[in-house]
């Protein structure tokens, strides 16, 4: 009989500790959401490198919330210590109402520790280091005017900020939401951890979803704002850029931006360091590591832990829905302002600039530039806008980092 009772108790204990009794409905909804995201990542291949770890982190945290739990301190009496096999010596003691308690530290969950790199703003600049190694600023150097398009596409960020304020978000939250319009994952995460860490899950997921949807979101806006004639403009070939110019570029940019806007220095600094690895040609090994192994490791940590911030209780709120809508508005605005400024440049240059390259000003490298190329080629199969669009595209990365610096400075 005793054995049977013991068995029943044990099964009961396991059941009580299992997800079946500890999870609530929000967790189950999020498990469903994460499975949909996994499907999109694997079957539809929407940004799988990020979406897959994000979705899995989301799955894990909703199955086992303690995986993101911070470390705590347990107060145990000496008797409890003895019962739980906790060493009494070596721990601090607290006396409450004449009873001596031993302060027994417990450890946080696995993803809690990995998440510190996100929380402390370490991973996003490291991702930028890798991006810097992969970025060729040549098209931008040979056509510096494309920086205007990179700036224009950031207007969406600030317009959305206004929208978010009026929807009842605080200034800091609105800043974090607006940055979705920068279409730059690491920047969005960096700004959000500094301004509104409690919204990180929703903002990161909105930002990455919209980046994955660039080929669907942008073309209708681009076509609506341009005429057939404008889309068919063939641009002159870019002048070749010398190696010296390419080497000087990261150094000059970092000096200027870090002096004028120190808040943007971590992001821009790392981006330019990576670029100097590439262009200098003397530290090939470092560049390779930064853009391959290091970036892959950081992507795993970043993706999984950002996904893990989306626990049911945090994520399934009205705020998330507002953020997703505002994010889409920010994105569309960025695209629209980029194209509109492209049109201005088309007029100003007497038809030499194809306005389609303007939409690439929302970072999302290189997807946004590919979209410009594709929409342009649909009009004129012999038109190659890719390299021309890469100028505004990489300018957009610098532009969103600058916009991030402004937001951190003004509302942070």
């Amino acid at each position, binding site marked *: 009989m005793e054995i049977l009772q013991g068995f029943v108790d044990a099964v009961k204990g396991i059941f009580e500790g299992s997800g079946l009794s500890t999870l609530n409905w929000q967790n189950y909804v999020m498990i469903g959401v994460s499975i949909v995201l996994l499907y999109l990542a694997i079957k539809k291949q929407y940004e799988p490198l990020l979406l897959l770890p994000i979705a899995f982190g989301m799955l894990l945290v909703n199955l086992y919330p303690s995986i993101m739990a911070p470390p705590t301190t347990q107060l145990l009496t000496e008797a409890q210590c003895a019962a739980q096999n906790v060493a009494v010596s070596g721990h601090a003691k607290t006396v409450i109402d004449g009873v001596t308690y031993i302060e027994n530290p417990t450890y946080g969950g696995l993803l809690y520790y990995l998440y510190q790199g996100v929380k402390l703003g370490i991973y996003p600049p490291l991702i930028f280091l890798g991006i810097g190694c992969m970025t060729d600023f040549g098209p931008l150097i040979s056509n510096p005017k494309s920086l205007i398009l990179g700036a224009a596409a950031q207007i969406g960020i600030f317009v959305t900020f206004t929208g978010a304020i009026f929807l009842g978000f605080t200034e800091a939250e609105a800043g974090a939401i607006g940055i979705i319009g920068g279409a730059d994952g690491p920047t969005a995460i960096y700004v959000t951890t500094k301004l509104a860490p409690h919204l990180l899950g929703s903002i990161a997921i909105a930002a990455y979803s919209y980046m994955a949807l660039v080929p669907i979101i942008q073309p209708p806006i681009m076509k609506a704002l341009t005429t057939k004639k404008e889309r068919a403009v063939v641009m*002159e070939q870019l002048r070749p850029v010398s190696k010296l110019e390419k080497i000087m570029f990261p150094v000059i940019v970092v000096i200027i931006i870090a002096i004028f806007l120190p808040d943007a220095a971590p992001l821009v600094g790392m981006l330019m360091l990576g670029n100097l690895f590439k262009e200098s040609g003397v530290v090939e090994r470092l560049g390779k590591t930064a853009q391959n192994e290091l970036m892959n490791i950081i992507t795993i940590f970043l993706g999984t832990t950002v996904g893990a911030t989306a626990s049911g209780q945090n994520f399934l709120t009205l705020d998330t829905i507002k953020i997703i809508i505002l994010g889409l508005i920010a994105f569309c605005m960025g695209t629209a302002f980029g194209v509109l400024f492209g049109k201005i440049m088309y007029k100003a240059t007497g038809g030499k600039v194809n306005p389609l390259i303007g939409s690439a000003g929302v970072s999302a490298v290189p997807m946004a530039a590919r979209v410009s190329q594709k929409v342009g080629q649909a009009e004129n199969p012999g038109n190659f806008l890719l390299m021309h669009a890469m100028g505004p595209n990489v300018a957009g990365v610098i532009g969103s980092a600058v916009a991030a610096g402004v937001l951190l400075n003004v509302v942070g």
Partner: protein
Amino acid sequence: MNLSDVALLAKEELSLAEKGIASAKVVLTGFVVVFAMLILLIFIIKIYGAIVQKAQNAGKKSKEKKAEAVAETPAPVVAAPVAPAQTDGVSDEVVAVISAAVATMYGSSEKARIKSIKKSSDGGRSAWAKAGVLDNTRPF
């Protein structure tokens, strides 16, 4: 008090006018600073680009002069054929091919006359280069 409480407090404190002022402040600052920074970068890139190009061209020219001095002595073996002006430097063979293509399209009964052949301004790519770029960019 944790972070979300602070956020809640701040939410209640903002009136409509304050919201307007706060957003106008950020929009204006953001717009001006982002454009100012990037326009500053445009000028700096242009200036240093010009300086670097000038310096490198100067270096190249002095080298070319030396090379010319050496190369001047041997006379050119074959004189380059002078292309007719109306064909814009297109070789006779290509003109023949284009004429044949036109004749095929219009039929030989129609008397077509080719007045001029011009290279299209597609960024100066040759047909092969174009095919190559098309091939490389097609997956995008």
